[in-house]
């Protein structure tokens, strides 16, 4: 795959991005994985499939999502011109629905009559439950008990939408364990079930397929910035959990050598504390959930628990294509702590009147760090991957509802 002149040729036939990716699954699942791969290859460029996907993107999700120039925030930072790609305005409130629409249309063509998914923040669970309601397909969502507790509004939404939410108590009871449990369900229900994975992880073809569906983010951004500014952006910034909103924004720009690309991992309490979710920054390559990638693991190859205030970033791995892009030196990976992300959450809320998801707040925090050092002519696009309604409980617990109210008008904390 490593044609020297492009970063966009991957994966190879076996689903490898360099040494990363692949299909590390049990034999029971392997024929299913191959079936998904065949189905995706058959439909991905088929006009009818594309037309149906485009229809739902436009009329149901509300695409294209705006590219918004954050004037007040930019002025406050005193440097780069910051634009937000407003995935928070999508139906269901995050980018996750882009891939859910694509995958549910595929699942239907494959004749699957039951859908399962894993979720951390609950955004992917909500998006999956939503498209399942839309197409009248029974849906089971696996979610760690830790996340069930901290993302209660989303649990309620999923249930309202008719999904069954199964709380997972094993391991750290977060996203990693939800994914284990979803894979176990799939092994037991291969005949009728489609596993709708929420990020650019899992065995091939998922990392490629989810990236392709999410690339609508970057493709629209390209058109929109050309229209607004007449040129391509100078930098892109996105948070990275599994890495789907980031891959979606980055992918169409990978071969634009002048575009600086930055992925932001969750540093939790700080990298040095060991309580974080920064697999690229602090992990090493290993094999989990069907692919090889950077993982948080101990000396014996046991997977470690990740820690982040943001449930959607609380995962000890990362999509394999990110690992490859990191090694290739094409994308930089930075980290943002819980504390910094909460500050950015408040900052955006007060300066722009946009309440971001805590996941997205990681990208915003890093953008705010970068921007002051850059010239005013610098065009920066930040993925605002989701809205923060789901995080209000978490914020209230940390900052206190009262203290939030006490902040002086016009003065972001």
């Amino acid at each position, binding site marked *: 795959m490593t044609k020297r002149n492009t970063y966009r040729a991957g994966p190879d036939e076996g689903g490898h991005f360099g040494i990363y990716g692949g299909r590390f699954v049990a034999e029971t699942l392997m024929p299913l994985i191959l079936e998904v791969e065949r189905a995706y290859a058959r439909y991905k460029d088929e006009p009818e499939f594309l037309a149906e996907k485009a229809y739902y993107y436009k009329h149901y999700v509300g695409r294209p999502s705006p590219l918004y120039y954050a004037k007040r925030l930019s002025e406050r930072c005193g440097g780069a011109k910051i634009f937000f790609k407003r995935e928070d305005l999508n139906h269901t409130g995050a980018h996750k629905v882009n891939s859910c629409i694509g995958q549910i249309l595929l699942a239907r063509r494959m004749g699957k009559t039951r859908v399962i998914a894993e979720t951390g923040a609950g955004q992917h669970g909500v998006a999956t439950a939503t498209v399942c309601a839309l197409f009248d397909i029974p849906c089971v969502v696996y979610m760690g008990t830790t996340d069930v507790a901290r993302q209660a509004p989303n649990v309620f939404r999923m249930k309202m939408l008719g999904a069954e939410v199964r709380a997972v108590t*094993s391991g750290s009871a977060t996203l990693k364990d939800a994914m284990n449990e979803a894979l176990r369900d799939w*092994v037991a229900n291969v005949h009728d079930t489609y596993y709708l994975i929420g990020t650019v992880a899992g065995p091939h073809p998922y990392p490629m397929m989810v990236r392709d569906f999410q690339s609508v983010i970057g493709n629209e951004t390209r058109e929109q910035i050309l229209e607004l500014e007449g040129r391509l952006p100078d930098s892109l910034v996105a948070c990275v959990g599994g890495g789907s909103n980031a891959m979606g924004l980055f992918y169409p720009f990978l071969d634009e050598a002048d575009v600086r690309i930055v992925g932001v991992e969750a540093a939790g309490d700080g990298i040095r504390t060991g309580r974080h979710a920064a697999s690229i920054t602090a992990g090493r390559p290993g094999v989990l959930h069907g692919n090889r990638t950077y993982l948080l693991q101990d000396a*014996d190859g046991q997977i470690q628990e990740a820690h982040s205030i943001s449930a959607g970033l609380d995962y000890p791995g990362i999509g394999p294509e990110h690992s490859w892009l990191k090694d290739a030196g094409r994308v930089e990976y930075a980290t943002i702590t819980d504390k910094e992300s909460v500050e950015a959450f408040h900052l955006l809320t007060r300066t722009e009147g946009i309440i971001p998801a805590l996941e997205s707040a990681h990208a915003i925090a890093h953008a705010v760090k970068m921007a002051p050092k850059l010239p005013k002519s610098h065009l920066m696009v930040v993925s605002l991957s989701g809205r923060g309604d789901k995080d209000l409980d978490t914020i209230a617990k940390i900052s206190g509802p009262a203290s939030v109210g006490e902040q002086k008008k016009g003065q972001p904390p």
Partner: protein
Amino acid sequence: MSRAPHTRLARRFAALRTEGRAGLVTFLTAGDPDAKTAWKILKGLPGAGADVIEIGMPFSDPMADGPAIQASSLRALKAGQTLKKTIGVVARFRKADRDTPIVLMGYFNPIYSYGVAKFLKDARAAGVDGLIVVDTPIEEEDELCGPARAAGLDFIQLVAPTTGEARLPKVLARASGFVYYVSITGITGTRSAAVSDVAGAVRRIRRHTHLPIAVGFGIRTPKQAAEIARIAEAAVVGSALINVIADGLDKSDKAKKGLGPRVLGLVTRLARGVRSAKSGRGAKWKAA
């Protein structure tokens, strides 16, 4: 048979064939619930009637396993088990037992982390005979299957009910030691397959291989083991044994008195079940 089989697994299956019976394969997780108790059980397995011993290499995220084996892996890890220690246990076992084949079973990441070449060298030197690694299907054969066979270890391939006709010969072409038929589409320790389905699957596999066939997933009782022994070369029992361990722990997961003998007691009953089923069908496969 033209010459004496040169691997421990082949010798053991040849001997079983001569006896005219199927074998019992036991699965237990290394270091569960603690190294000392696990060692006592392991030492006693051949005497209790285990013909082949599978030792689980505990992993934090055992995706193909049900609650029993998940819990056993976590107990072992909590008690300090590592891959290095697991290999060490095999070396210790080999000092006293040169005949009982040992197969390490688990997931790829701990092996990858240890270093594949070093792992294969150390495992072979310790007296490991074969490997079963759940998450390295034939699509990833260069990762472990190829190197393992080159290093002189058997690589036991899993065949599932979902393995189709076109795929089956490809999987079996890469198998050695024996073939492990996963009798249900599901995780360990949950359901049991209907014997007639298993018999059909075993016939299907046998059309493509001369290797002995072991059947696992869902075999709990001596009666079930006996039924499988009539149609395959071996029955694998794991979760049922691990449930005995789980039942013999106090609130802080410490082994209560008599835990080891209780586990070995079930092994003895399972072995009796297997041995009661003289099949005469061992002649269906040829020693390598």
